[in-house]
């Protein structure tokens, strides 16, 4: 039962008020995409033991999507940030790197 703070409305929301939707920062490959790109887009996902970037929606609250950086092992939440970005904010990446020196860094 996680708590994630929605960066859009500022509420520290109970997991039951949120909708989880998997890995963040997926690149859409639409018309004209190669078979490999389409496969990557539709089906291939990371399953890290450790730092993970995820998509969430504050479905029972403000209704907005956001991203969360979270440790899949300890459930530590490194931070949340609005969904309107192609990659996690630099200061968040630096913060995670400091906490987890062995982390390979953000890989798309």
């Amino acid at each position, binding site marked *: 039962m996680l708590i994630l703070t929605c960066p859009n*409305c500022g*509420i520290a929301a*109970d997991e039951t008020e949120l909708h989880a939707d998997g890995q963040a920062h997926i690149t859409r490959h639409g018309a004209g995409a190669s078979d490999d790109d389409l496969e990557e887009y539709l089906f291939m996902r990371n399953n890290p033991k450790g730092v993970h970037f995820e998509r969430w929606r504050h479905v*029972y*609250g*403000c209704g907005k999507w956001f991203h969360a950086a979270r440790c899949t092992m300890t459930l530590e939440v490194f931070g949340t940030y609005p969904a309107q970005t192609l990659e996690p904010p630099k200061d968040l990446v630096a913060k995670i790197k400091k906490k987890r020196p062995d982390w390979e860094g953000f890989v798309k």
Partner: protein
Amino acid sequence: MSNAVTALNGAKYSGLIDIADAGLMGMITLRGDLASAAMAKVVKSITGAKMPKPRGVEIAGKGSVAWMSPDELLIMIDYAYADSAVAKISSALAGEHHLAVNVSDARAVFDLSGDELRDVLAKGSPSNLNPDSLPIGEMRRTRLGQLAVAFWFTDDSSAKLVCFRSVGDHVFKWLSNAAKPESSPNFYSAMR
């Protein structure tokens, strides 16, 4: 509009708290740039209220306005005034990308009152209802039981609650059940 009826149709219950149909209320969903001066101006002219802060509800003489999300307000005014208010917004914001739509009939609105209000709502909402976290004048969009609702306190022991019209009956039954006499958790009310 004499033939207009609310989803709750005047329902009332009295237990730990008083629950009542708040009647017909004009409501407008207004989406756009909340930093826009033109928007602030038209909201003020319609409701008399200033632009709310995030999660805030501003209440004024002609109506009130609630912050719903970073690009959405809920304007609450007289039921009969809603259509002309939408028209007014549309012309005031003609040059700006926005959406104003009358949603007066899409919701059920409750008047809640009583000293045990927070205790009753906390039977269904996982949000933090401590007065520090949910002060008077702040809206909480949350889950109540199995449904999405929004509520805000207008004073220490009064609140308004809004849900979708189709589930108004369920929310009324849920609230009435949670407000059964003898069922007070006596948590928030004991701190008062």
